[in-house]
């Protein structure tokens, strides 16, 4: 089946090549967490929760020198696909190897933007759970994680936004859905700081010729810019509403 209709130029879900899916967020969904967000990009739904900064327990023994975390910007990330998130139900046994890889990408990204903890034995724990898996999981997780960090009020130097891209018959498509993912086409996901368009992480899937790398990257980074514009508006509205409830 054609991913891009030759007649209308539209993709299977009605988008054009350079359009990302609709984004919706709900903040503060899990109140016990320090920060949480229910993030939807098209039909991909992710619950991101942040705890921290909190004591890592390194100093829990009774004697010895006070332990200090070797990495002052320590952040632990977790990426989970829920059992019901995809077509076939997954059992928990046998962790998806991609999940660990995605978690490492997330850690790399957030470490760049975090400040050193003021309390040297503390860590931040970020967990992303995919409730509905419709493609672009790592990209959505990166964006959702940033929003959760914002909701938790953890100071950061900048924001990170993620986006995926694929290419069909030479034409790059922005923000890959699961139907497009199934075709085993070359795919790329990037994590970007939108302010200066700096690429922090890049993940590729399925092999492709190196000439395709440039257009893929271009499409993905442009997708990040679009995502950031949407996120910016959502967060500003959210803060403005909350600011209205504060008195000066």
């Amino acid at each position, binding site marked *: 089946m054609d991913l891009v209709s030759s007649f209308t130029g539209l993709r299977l879900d009605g988008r054009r090549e350079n359009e990302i899916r609709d984004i919706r967020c709900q903040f503060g*969904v*899990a*109140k*016990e*967490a320090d920060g*949480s967000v229910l993030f939807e990009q098209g*039909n991909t*739904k992710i*619950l991101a*929760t942040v*705890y*921290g900064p*909190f004591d*890592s*327990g390194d100093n*829990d023994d009774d004697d010895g020198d006070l332990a200090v975390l070797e990495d002052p910007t320590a952040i632990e990330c*977790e990426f*989970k696909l*829920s*059992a*019901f*998130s*995809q*077509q*076939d*139900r997954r059992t*928990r046994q046998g962790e998806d190897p991609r999940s660990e890889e995605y978690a490492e990408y997330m850690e790399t990204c957030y470490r760049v933007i975090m400040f050193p903890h003021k309390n040297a034995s503390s860590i931040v*724990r970020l*967990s992303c*759970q995919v*409730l*509905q*898996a*419709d493609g672009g999981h790592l990209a959505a997780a990166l964006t959702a994680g940033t929003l959760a960090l914002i909701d938790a009020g953890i100071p950061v130097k900048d924001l990170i936004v993620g986006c995926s891209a694929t290419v069909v018959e030479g034409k790059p498509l922005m923000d890959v859905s699961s139907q497009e993912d199934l075709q085993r086409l070359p795919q790329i996901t990037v994590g970007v700081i939108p302010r200066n368009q700096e690429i922090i992480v890049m993940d590729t899937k399925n092999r492709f010729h190196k000439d395709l790398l440039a257009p893929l990257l271009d499409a993905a980074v442009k997708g990040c810019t679009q995502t950031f514009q949407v996120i910016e508006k959502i967060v500003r509205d959210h803060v403005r509403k909350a600011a209205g409830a504060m008195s000066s």
Partner: protein
Amino acid sequence: MGERRSAQDESVLQEREDSYINASEQQFLSEGIIDYDFRLDGRGPLDYRTIHISIGEVLSASGSARVTLGETCVLATVKTAIKTPSKSHPDFGFIEFSIDSSPLTSHKHDEEEDESRSPQEARSILQSVYQESGGVDRRKLCIVKGSKCWALFFDLIIFEKGTSLLDAASLAVKAALFDTKFANVTVVEDELDQFEVEFTDDPYDYWQMDATSVPVVTSLHKIGPVFLVDVTKEEQVAANASVVIATNSKGTLFYQNTDWKGSQFGFELNLIDEAMETACRAAAHVDSRLMSALISLPPPKSWKNTLL
């Protein structure tokens, strides 16, 4: 709120600090309930707090429901699959539960002791109510006796844990079951007397189970001689006994458990009767309200009402 720390109290400030109430607050609370029939938030003894339910949120599941009751928020999802029935029950389907409380507990890196209604206990109670005791009629899940049946996998995620976790979880399970879409299948028999199940291509060709007689779980707590439904944290601390039952609209009892919280007086037999009767009344009420709310929802999408 005042904090009473006795020498036996080993726990440092945890999240329960807000639920401890001192002696005079406890007295105020108990007096209000026993003498004036007033709970702290003005509810009657058998009134639930406002319950928010939203069904069909998770599109990748066959059915889903998110229930918010007070501070407790639970998401229940159902996935359907075809399995071979067990030899001992060839005309029964399967039901399996799993509970995930990771949005809550990510920060507890050292395992702290769970409270009495921990998620694991909730899971075994739900399994007992809906699967073992026949809360869901498993015969309805049979496709070909002895060869093919439906399996229902319930995955619950606890977004927030307040009080009344079991109540919220069972309401979510019942609403998710109401929402569950079973794809219509055709059974093909081949030469070797093996049955193959073929799914329909039509996404709107499904049947739904009648969830009217599916049970709900109700937990009651006792303060003085009064039984309260859906207690808050303060009321839970002040209560001296609790009762959990699972019952359905027909009055069948699927599960019961009583906890005297170490009181030295125990329970007299007539109090047990009264507890059961009160619980059944409360459960019947919330059950009928739930069903009428679910039935009054607009019908799910079909070819008739989808814009093409």
